[in-house]
């Protein structure tokens, strides 16, 4: 269901709206945020230079360290008393990045996540269980307000406590699950251990997944295990949280809310803007946020943009599933490898579980990659020949797709770590040089 009339604006209407909102935003950050003023001055650009959407490219990029360097509130445009909510990123290294919302920002966020929920098929009749961690992380609160806004009943379950999660799912008749895709896979596994078949014994029909990227193979696995319709949505706290984009029932990419964001794709190495349809790093400018507008934020996510109108009727540009973050990309013996490519192969292979761990190391001058995979199928278990054949076929597929040799290590079922939030499946043991 299309939630807002803005989602079907014509291209010229979208661009008109974007330009005037962009001009306002640029003017505001220049006047109110010394950090932006300094960066714009250094780049020799003034707010009045933004005469068309093309002029956006004159503005300097904003990166995560801009937020860290101005910790905690240095990029905010409004006085602290105007804030009604403050969130922060997990900040695995050093200080977290802090984001704030005015009353109006929260209203916009609610609108954006309402659209995402409606796009994924949720309605006022649904019971939505939110299995994202509540707290400083934006995932849970974002979808919480959106789902409430469309009239669904929200269960603010938070992540973890998996057996209870499943009990509530069963007893309350949950129909919509909000979580990371890896946690949903783990929940299905725990349900099975409890003697509950998610497909038959639970009523979860819709999955709204986010917080980490996922592959088509992962979607197929989720649909199969849960008997659901899984969609993915995208966002990040620096931009607003979830709600930046989401998949509609056509599953042909995630619609970016272009009345609130401007999307560009750049070559991550040169910063040059790439033409439509080419893969590169997604750069987003917020054009309606009050507390923390962000100009040309480098998301590090690798994707492409598609402008033709979707079969669902929405006109907003679509972004493809992310190939992975430019951060996640591994360079192994000079070859670029995204863990998502490996995941795709693993999930499509019979006999093994979708849980895996990749370890990259260096032996002498040579990079090595070993992948631990859980053996699941017991029918081939009595034969070393068949187990070796499984290893060999995986090795061969990886070699074909990635062009490099990997060591495959079959491990015992359920011996690898399971994740309640974003999965961390890659360990890089190499020194920082040449990574």
């Amino acid at each position, binding site marked *: 269901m299309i939630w807002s009339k803005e989602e079907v604006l014509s291209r010229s209407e979208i661009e008109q709206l974007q330009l005037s909102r962009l001009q306002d935003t640029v003017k505001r950050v220049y006047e109110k945020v010394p950090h932006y003023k300094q960066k714009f001055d250094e780049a020799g650009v003034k707010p009045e230079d933004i005469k068309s959407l093309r002029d956006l490219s004159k503005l300097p990029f904003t990166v995560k360290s801009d937020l860290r360097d101005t910790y905690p509130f240095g990029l905010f445009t409004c006085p602290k008393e105007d804030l009604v909510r403050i969130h922060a990123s997990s900040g695995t290294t050093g200080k977290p990045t802090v984001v704030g919302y005015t009353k109006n920002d929260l209203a916009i966020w609610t609108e954006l996540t309402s659209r995402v929920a409606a796009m994924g098929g949720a309605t006022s009749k649904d019971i939505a269980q939110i299995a994202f961690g509540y707290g400083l992380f934006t995932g849970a609160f974002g979808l919480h307000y959106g789902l409430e806004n469309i009239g669904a009943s929200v269960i603010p379950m938070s992540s973890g406590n998996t057996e209870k999660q499943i009990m509530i799912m069963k007893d309350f008749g949950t129909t919509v699950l909000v979580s990371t895709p890896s946690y949903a896979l783990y929940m299905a596994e725990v349900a099975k251990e409890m003697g509950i078949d998610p497909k038959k014994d639970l009523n979860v029909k819709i999955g709204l997944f986010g917080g980490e990227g996922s592959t088509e193979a992962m979607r197929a696995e989720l649909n199969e295990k849960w008997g659901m319709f899984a969609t993915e949505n995208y966002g990040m706290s620096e931009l607003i949280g979830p709600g930046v984009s989401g998949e509609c029932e056509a599953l042909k990419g995630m619609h970016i809310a272009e009345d609130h964001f401007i999307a560009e794709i750049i070559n991550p190495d040169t910063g040059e803007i790439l033409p439509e349809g080419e893969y590169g790093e997604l750069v987003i400018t917020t054009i309606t946020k009050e507390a923390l507008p962000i100009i040309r934020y480098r998301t590090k996510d690798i994707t492409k943009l598609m402008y033709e109108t979707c079969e669902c009727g929405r006109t907003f540009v679509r972004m493809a599933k992310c190939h992975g973050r430019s951060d996640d990309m591994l360079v192994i013996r000079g070859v670029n490898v995204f863990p998502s490519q490996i995941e795709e192969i693993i999930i499509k292979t019979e006999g093994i579980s979708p849980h895996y761990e990749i370890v990259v190391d260096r032996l002498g001058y040579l990079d090595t990659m070993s992948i631990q995979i859980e*053996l699941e199928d*017991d029918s081939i*278990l*009595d*034969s070393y020949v068949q187990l070796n054949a499984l290893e060999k076929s995986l090795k061969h597929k990886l070699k074909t797709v990635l062009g490099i040799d990997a060591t495959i290590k*079959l491990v*015992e*079922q359920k*011996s690898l770590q399971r994740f309640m939030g974003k999965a961390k499946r890659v360990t890089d043991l190499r020194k920082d040089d040449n990574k």
Partner: protein
Amino acid sequence: MLSQLSVFIENKKGNLVRVTQILKENDVDIRAIAVFDTPEFGILRLIVIDPQKGKEVLNEKGYSVRLGEVIGIELTDELGSLNTVLELLSDNDITINYIYSFVLRKEGLPVMVMNVNDMRSAKETLEKNGISLYK
């Protein structure tokens, strides 16, 4: 035919004892065990008194376990008895995947456990030639 449990284990310290511990705690008596010196992972093959229960308790603890059939042959304790069996199988184009043995404590007789490419024809061949199978 004889039921055998095949358990997938990684070659790590303590992994074997963990399996035998689980079986012990659940009163599943082990009659025979075979494991080889493979580098990464191994298949632990077990003949136990109650294989169904053995599979269940190991599954519960997260192990991949296969309950399969093997041929058990009671050998007489005399020169050439194993050779006779192997010749019979070979003459009938039956190839052996693996073989191990255990001893029946009361009778003191050795039992050969084998897995072959064609279980049914192996069984028929042996029975036809008067070789007694252990069940």
